C-alpha cells in the first residue's frame, strides 16, 4: 500500500510527512526565494492568508486531512528548496473526493469478504456447528470494529504527538474516515481468518475474547511496523525495506499463524485422527454455500488489492487484473495438484487454491507482470494443496477449512515471491529484497504465532477455549446457542 499512496498525483496525505523534515532546512532560502516560490502558485490558493497562518492550519494528523485543509509543497527556486503552504486547487479537491469514494467503495467490497468467510467456513464444516460459525463471523466483525476503533487504529497509525483513539478529533469530511474504514475491514479480515481453523470445537466466549485482542493489539502492532507511515506512524519493518503492498503477510499470514496457534492449542476435533494417527475426513456440509462464499471473497479481493492504492487513479486496474490472474491460476494449480494426488478433482481444494492465489499475489500485486502473476498464483495453488496435506498428515494439526495453508503459508510464499517477481527491483537487488522479505515474514511468524500461543493458552486457562466433549459431539449449535442451523431438515449428525 505504501508505494502507491505516495504516488498520489497531488499527494495530500504525504504532504504532512514532507513538512517535518523540510521545516528544519527552511531557514536557508532568502525572503526573495520564498517570494519567488510563492509566485509560482496561483495566489487564490492562499485564501488571502499569510504562510504562517496557513502553516498553522496544516492538520496535525494525516487522519484530519480534508479537501479544505492546506498542504505544504516543496518548490525548487534558484537551486534551493522552498517549502510553501497553500490550499488545494479544484482539481486536487476532485482528486481528494475520488480518493475518498474509491477507498470507501473498496472498503465495502472488503467488508463483503466477511460474508464470504462466513459462507466458506460454514460450508466446509458440519451442519451441527453452523450457527456457531456464523455467530463467530458476525461477532468478530462487531467486536473487532469496536476494538479497532477504541485502540487498534491508534496503535497502528498514530504518531507520537496526536492520539487516534476513537478516530481522534475528526471533522465531517476528513480523510481519516475513509482510511479508518478501509483499515478496519482489514483488521476484521485478519480476525475472521482464524475462526475457520478453530471451527467446530471452540467455546464461544473464548473466541470473542480472542477476536477482541487481535483487532485491538496483535494485528495493529505488526501492521504499524509494516504500514505505519501510511498515516502518522512509521514502522521499523518498512524502514528495513520490507515490502507488502496489500497484506500477504500483514493481513493473511498474521491471520494464518494465529490460526495455527489456535488450532494447536485447541487440539483436533474428536475423531479427527484415528488411533493409528491417520486423519479422518469430516466433509463440509454445504459446498454450494462454500463456493458462493469463495466467489464473494474473490469479489471482495477486488476491493482488497486494488483498493490498497487508496487513490482514485489508473493503478488499480493493473492490480485488479493481476489479482484476477493469480486467482485463476491458483485455482488451476490446486485443481491439477489434488487431481494428481487423489485422482479426483476436489472442489474444496480448488476453492482453497484460488483463494491461495489471491492471498499470495497481495504482496507484489502492484509491481508484477502478467507472467509474475501467473507464476505466483500457480505456485500458490500447488503449495496450498501440499500444505494442507502436510499439516493434516504430518503435523496433525486439525484445520477444518485450510486457513493456515491458504492464509499463513501462501501469504508467506507471496511475500517472498515479491523478491523474485517484482519489476521494481533493480539488477542484483534480489537478494537484498529477499532478505528484507524474509525478515518481514519471519518477524510476522514469530509475532503472530508467539502472541497467538500466549493468548490462546491464557484463554484456555482462564475462561476456557475448548467446548466440552459432549457439546462437541452434539454440536455447538444446540449446546452453545440453543438453536439448529437447519431446523426441520433431517441430517445425520453421527460422524
Amino acid at each position, binding site marked *: 500500500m505504501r508505494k502507491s499512496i505516495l504516488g498520489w498525483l497531488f499527494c495530500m496525505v504525504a504532504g504532512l510527512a514532507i513538512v517535518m523534515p523540510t521545516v528544519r532546512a527552511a531557514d536557508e532560502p532568502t525572503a526573495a526565494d520564498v517570494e519567488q516560490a510563492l509566485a509560482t502558485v496561483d495566489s487564490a490558493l492562499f485564501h488571502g492568508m499569510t504562510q504562517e497562518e496557513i502553516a498553522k492550519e496544516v492538520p496535525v494528523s494525516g487522519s484530519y486531512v480534508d479537501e479544505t485543509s492546506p498542504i505544504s509543497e516543496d518548490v525548487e527556486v534558484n537551486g534551493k528548496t522552498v517549502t510553501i503552504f497553500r490550499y488545494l486547487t479544484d482539481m486536487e479537491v476532485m482528486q481528494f473526493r475520488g480518493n475518498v469514494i474509491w477507498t470507501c467503495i473498496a472498503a465495502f467490497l472488503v467488508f463483503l469478504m466477511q460474508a464470504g468467510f462466513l459462507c466458506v467456513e460454514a460450508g466446509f464444516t458440519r451442519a451441527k456447528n453452523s450457527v456457531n460459525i456464523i455467530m463467530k463471523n458476525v461477532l468478530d466483525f462487531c467486536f473487532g470494529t469496536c476494538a479497532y476503533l477504541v485502540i487498534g487504529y491508534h496503535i497502528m497509525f498514530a504518531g507520537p504527538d496526536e492520539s487516534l483513539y476513537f478516530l481522534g478529533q475528526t471533522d465531517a469530511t476528513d480523510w481519516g474516515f475513509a482510511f479508518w474504514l478501509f483499515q478496519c475491514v482489514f483488521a476484521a479480515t485478519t480476525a475472521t481468518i482464524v475462526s475457520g481453523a478453530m471451527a467446530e470445537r471452540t467455546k464461544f466466549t473464548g473466541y470473542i475474547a480472542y477476536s477482541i485482542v487481535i483487532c485491538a493489539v496483535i494485528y495493529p502492532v505488526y501492521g504499524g511496523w509494516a504500514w505505519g507511515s501510511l498515516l502518522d506512524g512509521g514502522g521499523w519493518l518498512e524502514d528495513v525495506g520490507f515490502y507488502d503492498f496489500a497484506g500477504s503477510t500483514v493481513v493473511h499470514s498474521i491471520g494464518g499463524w494465529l490460526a495455527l496457534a489456535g488450532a494447536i492449542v485447541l487440539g483436533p476435533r474428536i475423531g479427527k485422527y484415528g488411533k493409528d494417527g491417520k*486423519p*479422518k*475426513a*469430516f*466433509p*463440509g456440509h454445504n459446498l454450494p454455500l462454500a463456493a458462493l462464499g469463495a466467489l464473494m471473497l474473490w469479489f471482495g479481493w477486488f476491493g482488497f488489492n486494488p483498493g490498497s492504492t487508496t487513490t482514485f487513479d489508473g493503478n488499480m486496474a493493473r492490480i485488479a487484473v493481476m489479482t484476477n490472474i493469480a486467482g485463476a491460476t491458483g485455482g488451476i494449480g490446486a485443481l491439477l495438484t*489434488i487431481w494428481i*494426488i*487423489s*485422482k*479426483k478433482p*476436489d472442489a*474444496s*481444494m480448488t476453492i482453497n487454491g484460488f483463494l491461495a492465489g489471491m492471498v499470495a499475489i497481495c504482496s507484489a500485486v502492484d509491481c508484477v507482470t502478467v507472467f509474475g502473476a501467473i507464476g505466483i498464483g500457480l505456485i500458490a495453488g500447488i503449495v496450498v*494443496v501440499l500444505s*494442507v*496435506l502436510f499439516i*493434516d498428515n504430518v503435523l496433525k494439526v486439525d484445520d477444518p477449512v*485450510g486457513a493456515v495453508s491458504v492464509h499463513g503459508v501462501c501469504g508467506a510464499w507471496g511475500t517472498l515471491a515479491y523478491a523474485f517477481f517484482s519489476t521494481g527491483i533493480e539488477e542484483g537487488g534480489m537478494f537484498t529484497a529477499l532478505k528484507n522479505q524474509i525478515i518481514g515474514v519471519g518477524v510476522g511468524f514469530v509475532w503472530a504465532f508467539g502472541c497467538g500461543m500466549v493468548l490462546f493458552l491464557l484463554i484456555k486457562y482462564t475462561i476456557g477455549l475448548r467446548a466440552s466433549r459432549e457439546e462437541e459431539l452434539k454440536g455447538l449449535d444446540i449446546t452453545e446457542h440453543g438453536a439448529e442451523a437447519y431446523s426441520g431438515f*433431517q441430517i*445425520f449428525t453421527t460422524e
Partner: protein
Amino acid sequence: MKLIIAYIQPERLNDVKQKLNEKEICKMSVTNALGCGQQGGYHEAYRGVDIEVNLLKKVRLELAVNQEFVKPTIDAIIAGARTGNIGDGKIFVLPLEECIRIRTGEEGSAAIG
C-alpha cells in the same frame, strides 16, 4: 397378513414401483436408509483425505400385504430391483397381526389395500 420390508438401490425405486403397479400393489411406504451389506462401500476423498463410506444410500420399502399378495410382491420387487450386482438389496417378511385404516377404523385384510 405380512409386513414386507425391502432394501433396494435408490435408482431402482421407479422400476420397482412400476412392477408393483403392474401387479396392482400400489400401497407402500418409502423411507431413506443407509445400508451396510456385502457391497462394502466405496471411497471418497475429501481434501485429499480418504473417506471410507460403508453406509450406502438405500431406499427402504415397507408394504403391508395380505397373504396371497406376498409372493407377487416379492416377485415384483425382485423384478424391479435385480441388476445382478452386489448391493441389489434384501427383502424381509414379518408377520403382521393387525392393520387398521385410520380414516374408517376398518381392520384386518380389508384395511390393507
